[in-house]
C-alpha cells in the first residue's frame, strides 16, 4: 500500500514528462523509419547492405542519445520538484526508512525508463527488420544496448546531482556520470560492446546503492 502511494506520487510528477518523452521516442523512431525508407529508395539495396555489414556504418545512430536524454529528464521530473523549497523533507519525514523510500523512487524512475528502452529496442528490431535480414536487426539491438545503458547512467547521474545538497559534490557526481557516459559511445561499428557490456552493466549497478549517499547527506546535513 505504501509502495503504491509512493508510486502514485512519482507517477504524478513524471507523467507529463514521460508522456512527452514517449511522443519524442515515437517521433524519433518514426523519423528513423522514414530515413531508412528514403535510403532504400534512393540507393541500391545491395549497396546499403554493403555499407551496413562490411563498412559497419550504423544507419540507426540518430537514436543513440535518446535514452540518455530520457534518463536525465525522468530524473529531473522526479527529483526537481522534491528539491524546490526543500520538499524532500516532506518525504524524509514519512514513517518509512529513508533508503527504502529513495530506492522505491529510483525503482519507479528506472521502470519508466525501462518501458521507453523496451519500446526503443523493439521498434529498432522491427524497423531494421523491414529492410535488413534478421541478423542485422539483432545486431542493431545489441549495438544499441550501450546507448540504453547510457539512459541508466544519465538517470542515476542526474538523480545523484539533484538529491545532493552540496554544490561541489554535485559537480563530482556529474563528472563521474559524464566519464562513464563517454565510455559508452566509443563505437566505430556494430556490436563492439558485446564482450565488455556485461562488465559495464555490473559496474553501472553500483549506482543503485550510491543514490543513498546524497539522500543521507541531505537528511544529516550539519
Amino acid at each position, binding site marked *: *500500500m*505504501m509502495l*503504491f*502511494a509512493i508510486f*502514485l*506520487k512519482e507517477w*504524478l*510528477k513524471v507523467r507529463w514528462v514521460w508522456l512527452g518523452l514517449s511522443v519524442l521516442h515515437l517521433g524519433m523512431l518514426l523519423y528513423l523509419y522514414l530515413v531508412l525508407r528514403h535510403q532504400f529508395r534512393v540507393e541500391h539495396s545491395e549497396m546499403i547492405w554493403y555499407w551496413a555489414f562490411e563498412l559497419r556504418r550504423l544507419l540507426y545512430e540518430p537514436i543513440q542519445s535518446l535514452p540518455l536524454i530520457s534518463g536525465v529528464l525522468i530524473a529531473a521530473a522526479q527529483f526537481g*520538484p522534491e528539491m524546490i*523549497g*526543500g*520538499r524532500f*523533507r*516532506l518525504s*524524509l*519525514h*514519512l*514513517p*518509512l*526508512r529513508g533508503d527504502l523510500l529513495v530506492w522505491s523512487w529510483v525503482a519507479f524512475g528506472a521502470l519508466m525508463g525501462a518501458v521507453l528502452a523496451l519500446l526503443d529496442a523493439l521498434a529498432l528490431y522491427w524497423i531494421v527488420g523491414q529492410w535488413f535480414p534478421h541478423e542485422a536487426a539483432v545486431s542493431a539491438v545489441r549495438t544499441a544496448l550501450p546507448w540504453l545503458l547510457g539512459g541508466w547512467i544519465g538517470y542515476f547521474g542526474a538523480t545523484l546531482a539533484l538529491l545532493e545538497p552540496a554544490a561541489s559534490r554535485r559537480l563530482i557526481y556529474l563528472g563521474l556520470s559524464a566519464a562513464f557516459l563517454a565510455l559508452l559511445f566509443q563505437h566505430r561499428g556494430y556490436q563492439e560492446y558485446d564482450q565488455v557490456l556485461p562488465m559495464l552493466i555490473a559496474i553501472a549497478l553500483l549506482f543503485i546503492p550510491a543514490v543513498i549517499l546524497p539522500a543521507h547527506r541531505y*537528511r*544529516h*546535513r*550539519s
Partner: protein
Amino acid sequence: MNAAIRVEHLAHRYGRRFIYQDLSFAVPEGKVVALLGKNGVGKTTLIRLLMGFLRPSAGQCRVLGEPSHALSPATRARIGLLFEGHLAYDFMSIAQIERFYRPFYRRWRRELYYDLVDRLGLSHDHKIGNMSCGQRSQVVLGLIFAQDPDLMILDDYSMGLDAGYRRLFLDYLRRFLDEGGKTVFVTSHVVQDMEALVDEVIFLQRGGAVKQLPLVEFRRQFRCFGFRVDGNAPPQADGLIENVDLHGRAPCLYTFAEPAQLAAHLETHWPQVRLGDEQPLTLEDAFIGLTGKY
C-alpha cells in the same frame, strides 16, 4: 514530568560561527509551547534540529525519547510537522494528497482532513499548486490532523496568512487540541496569536540564552513602567531591569520585579530615575519589551 522534547547542552554552529553553545530546555507532554525569538537568534535552526534535518554539533536533542536526527519510522509517525511556508506537494490535488499520505499512518483520520478541507468549497481534484497560501494552510493542517500525531512541530504557521486564515488556523488547531493528549511546539511571528493558544513560552535570545515560563506567569510578572531621568544618564538593563526602551515617545523600562522591589533597586543603583506609572502590555508589547526592538 515526561518531556516530548528535551534539549540538553545543545550546541550548533555554521562554519566557525556558533548559533548556540549550551542550550537546554524541555517541552512537557500535553503542553502547547511557543518558541519566540527575534530574527537571527536561531529559531529556524532549532526547528531544523528538532525536525531532524540537521545534526547537532554537540549536545542532545531528543524528540519523543529518540535523537531527533535519527528518529525511527514509528516515532516519525507520531510527529506531525508543519514546514515553513506550508510546504506541500504542489502537483497533487486535494484528493491525491490525502490518498498519498493515508497508507503511511495507522491512525489516519480521513474525516478530519475532509472536515477541514471541504470548508474551502473546492472540488477534490483542485490542484494544491493553484491554491492561495491560506487555502494551502488548511490542506496542510488537515493532513497533520488526519495523521493524529502525539507531537506537532509547527514552524511559522502564520507565514503568508491573512488575519482571517490565521484565525481559522488557530480555531481549528485549538478545537483539535481540545481532544487532549497532544503536545505542540510552535513558532510564529505573530506574537499576539499565542495568547489564546499556548501554555508556555520559550524566549530564545541572541547567543543562545533561553527563558522558559508559563505564559500566565509571564503575563503576570513582566511589567513595564514609564520613567523620567534627572540629567541625561538613562538606566540600563542590569539583571533586574530587563530592558530599557528609549525609542518611544515616552521612555519606559521592563522588569520581572515587583514595583516595590524595582523602586528599591532604582534608589540604590539609578537614583536619577523617577519611576512613573505601570503601563498596560499586550503580549506583543511584552515580547518586544523582553527581547528589544533591534
